[in-house]
C-alpha cells in the first residue's frame, strides 16, 4: 500500500507519496490557472511495477477562497487514483484467475482429453 497525502497550499496542490516500499516523493501542481496533472501521471506510471494500491487523504480546504475549483481538482485527482487502483485490481484479478486456472488444472484428476 502506498499512502498519498494531498494538500492545497496557496496556489499549489502538494502531493506526498510515502510507504514502506517506496522512497518518499513530493509532487507540486500549480492550481492557480490551467491545471496539468501530467506530473502525477508521470510518477504513477513509475509506480506501476510495484503493483501496490494507493490510499489517499485530502487535507481540509473548506476555508479556501476558490473552494469550487479546488473541489473539482480534488475530484479529478481522486478519479486518477481510483483508476490507478482499479488497474492494479484488474491486474491482481487477472493474476489470481491465472493461478486459479493453474490450481484447477493441478487439482484435477481428469485427463486433459
Amino acid at each position, binding site marked *: 500500500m502506498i499512502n498519498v497525502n494531498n494538500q492545497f497550499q496557496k496556489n499549489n496542490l502538494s502531493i506526498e507519496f510515502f510507504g514502506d516500499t517506496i522512497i518518499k516523493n513530493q509532487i507540486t501542481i500549480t492550481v492557480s490557472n490551467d491545471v496539468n*496533472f*501530467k506530473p502525477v501521471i508521470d510518477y*504513477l506510471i513509475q509506480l*506501476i511495477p510495484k503493483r501496490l494500491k494507493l490510499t489517499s487523504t485530502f487535507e481540509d480546504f473548506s476555508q479556501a477562497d476558490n473552494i469550487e475549483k479546488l473541489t*473539482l481538482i480534488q475530484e479529478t485527482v481522486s478519479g486518477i487514483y481510483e483508476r490507478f487502483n482499479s*488497474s492494479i485490481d484488474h491486474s491482481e484479478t487477472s493474476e489470481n484467475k491465472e493461478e486459479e486456472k493453474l490450481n484447477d488444472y493441478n487439482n484435477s484428476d481428469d485427463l486433459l482429453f
Partner: protein
Amino acid sequence: MNKIYSDWFKVDLHIHSDFSNKTKTKDYDGSFNIDILKEKLIENQVKLFSLTDHNIINAEAYKNYYDNFTNGDPVLLVGCEFDIKVKQDDDSFLTYHTLLIFDETTTEKANEIASIIENHLTETNIKERSVSEDEIFELFQPYHFFYIPHAGGHKNIIDAYKDADIRKAQEMVLLMECAHEKVKEKHRLRHQQEFDKLKDPDFRNKKDEAFINFSDNHNCDIYPNPKNGATHEFYCLKGEPTFETLRFAFIDPQSRIRKQQEVDLLKNVKKHISTIEIKGIKDVDDCNIEFSPNLNVIIGGASSGKSLLFNLIGKKIGNNKHDFQKYNCNDSEVLIKASNSQTPQLTLPFNDDEVIYINQGDIVKYFETGDLKELVIDSGRENQLSEAKEKLQSTKNNLLSEFETFKNRFDRFNSSYRKDFIIHEGDFESMTNDKFHFVEFTPSVELIDLTEKERLLENISNNISSLKNDEIFEFNNSENTVVESFENLIKTKKELILQKKLTNESISHFIEGVKTVLDEKNNNLESASRAKKEALSRKQSLLTTCKTLFKQALEFDESCMILEQLKCDNKEEIKVTESVKLILEIENNDQLRQGITNCINGGEIEKSIYENYLVLVRDNNNLKDYKEYTEDRLIQKLKKETKLILNNYDAPRTYLDYGGNGNSKNKSPGFNAEMYLKTILHYEKCKVVMIDQPEDNLGNTFKNEDLINLLRDFKFLKQIILVTHNPSIVVYGDAESIILAENTSGQISYSQLFLENKDFQKLIIDNLDGGKSIFDMRSRKYNIKKLLNS
C-alpha cells in the same frame, strides 16, 4: 594372388616324425612320409611348420623337404622338442618339454643342428636324453631360436619346477620372450597374473603373454589330429610365413596370434575398400593398391602424395568432405573395388553413415569453433540433431514473438502517454457556473442481438427436414410423430424470436427518440450551459485516458518482466554414446537484457527494462541511433541489439558432455579428440574410418597410448585408413598394410609394405621420424635388461 598386406595364415610348429620313436618308446604311430605330410599341410592351408622330434632331428626328412621346396609351399623352420631337466631341492630331476624353433630353413643348418645334438648327447642313453636350460643356451648360442615350453598339460614347465624356485621358470620364459604351448583358456589368466609379478611395472597388464597351441601330431596319416585323436584347432599368425613373423607374433600376441575360428570371424568383416587401381593421374605412377580390411596407414615424406591418395580414395567412395579437386587431376581412369564386389568400378559409393572421413586438423577445429555437428553426423544421430535444432528454432520464434508483443504494448502505452492531462482554467470556470444542462441518457437495458438465435433455429429446421426425408433412418410411424412434434416446437420458438425482435426494435426506436429530444433541448440552451457540459465531458475524458494509460503501462510492464525473466540458457542434449552426450547450448548471460536496454539512449543495465523504457516514453527522441521513435524502428533496433543471441539459436555452441568426466569445454584438445575418436569409432553402422594425420589432433600421451589402443580395439571391427607421420601408430598399432608414398623429382609412386618384413622395416624406419627407436622399443617385450640386472 598373394596379399600385399599382413594377412592371416595357419602355423604348426609341433609335428613329429617317426624319428621320435628313436628317442621315445612307441611315440610315433604309423609310418612317416614327408610327402604325405606336405600334402596334408597344403590341404589344411598351413603356411609355416616345423618337424619337432623328441631330442633329435630327422635331418633326412628336412633334406627331402628342402630339396623339393618350391615357392608357395609351406615354409619349414628347423626345430626340435627337448626334454629339459630341472634339478629339484632334493637333488632329483624333473623334466618338461619345450620346442626350440630356429631361424633356419636349409638342409645344411638342419644337419648342423642335428649334429650338435647328437655330439652332445652321444654318451647318453638315447631313450633318456635330456638337457638343462644352461646347456641349451651353451649349445645353440650362435643361433636365433624361440623357446616354446609346455606351460600346461603333460610335462609342463610349471610342474617341473614344483619343488624348485618357480621364479626361475618364469624368468626363463620371460627372458626368451616366447610363447607358452598347451595352456588351456581357463589357465591363461592365472599365468598372466603370475608372470606379471616379475615384470617391470611399465610392462604389466599388457597382455603380452603369448599362448599358442600346435597339433603335436604323431601320425601324418591323421594330420592335423594330435596323438589322442582329438580334433585340432589351428592357430594363425599374421604376416608372411617367416621366423620374423613369429617374432612379431610373440611380441604382440594380442594383435598377431588368433585361433582359426576367431580369424574366420575377423575375415568376415563388413563391406570395405578392397583395391584401388591408379591409372592416368598426372605425375603419379600407375599402380594397384590392395587394402587390408583392418588398419591401413599411408606414410611418406613431405609432398610425397599421401594426402593425394587419401583424397583420391575419398572422392572415389563419394565422400563429400574430400578435397581432391585441389590437385587438379583427372581421375577418370582410376578404378576402385569393394570387398563384396568382383569388378573394379569408377566409383564405390558408401552411404553417409558408413564412412567417417576426417581431414587433417578437423577434430581440433570442431572443438575450437564449438561446432560438433560433424560428430553427430559421423555417429548417425542426424535425426536427433534436426529435432534439437527445431526445438531451438521454436524457442527463438517465441522470443521474436515476445519482442513483437513488447513493441505493440510499448506503442499503445506511448500513444496514450502523448495525450493531454490538463484542465484549462476556462473549463474550471465553465464547470463551476450555475447553468444547467440535460445529462445524456444512458439506457440501462442491454439489447440482445437475436440474429444468431434466428440462424440457429433455421439450421435446426433444415436438419429436421433432411432427417425426416432420409430413408436410411427408416423412421416408423411413432418415430415420425416425435420428429413432427419437435418440428412444431421449433416453429413455435421461431415465432417467439420474431416477437422479441419486434420488441427490441421498439425499444431502440424509443431510446433514439429520447436522445434526439435531449440533444435538441441541450442545443437550445445558452452557450454557458453548453460550455459546462463540454468541460465536464473533457474532465471525464481525462480520467478515461488515465485509466487506459495505467492499463497499458501495466501490460507493458508485464512484457518487460517476461523478457527480464527470459533465460536464454536453452540446452538440447543428444545422446551420442552411453557415456557421451552432445550439448547444443545457448549460453545463459545478460546479453538479452543488455540488448534490450541498449536500444535506449542512456539505458542502464542496473535499471529494470520498464524503468529504462520510461525514458523513451517521456522523450520519443531517446531511441538510440534514430532521430524519432516509430513502431518499426523499435523492433528493428531490438533485433539488431540482440542479434548475437538470435544468431546463437541458428548456430548454437556445441560441446560434449562426458558424464562423470566433465565436458569438452574444460578438457584439453587431446582429451577431447580422444573422446571424439572413441565416440565415432563406436558407431556401429560405420564401416570405413579415414583420418588424415590423426596425431595432429592429439596430445603426445594420447597419441602413444590411447589412440593406439583405440585403433587396436576397432581395427578388427571396421576398416581404418590413416595418413600418418607417427611411427607409434604404425608399429604399436600393428598396421596390417603400410602404403609408402614417395616423390622422386616430382613423380609420385606408391608401394606396399608390411611390418614383419626386415627389408620393409628399413624403409619404414627411413620414412617415419623416430621410427628406429619405436621399432627398438617394440622389440622389448618385457624390458629384459632391467630384469637381467635385477
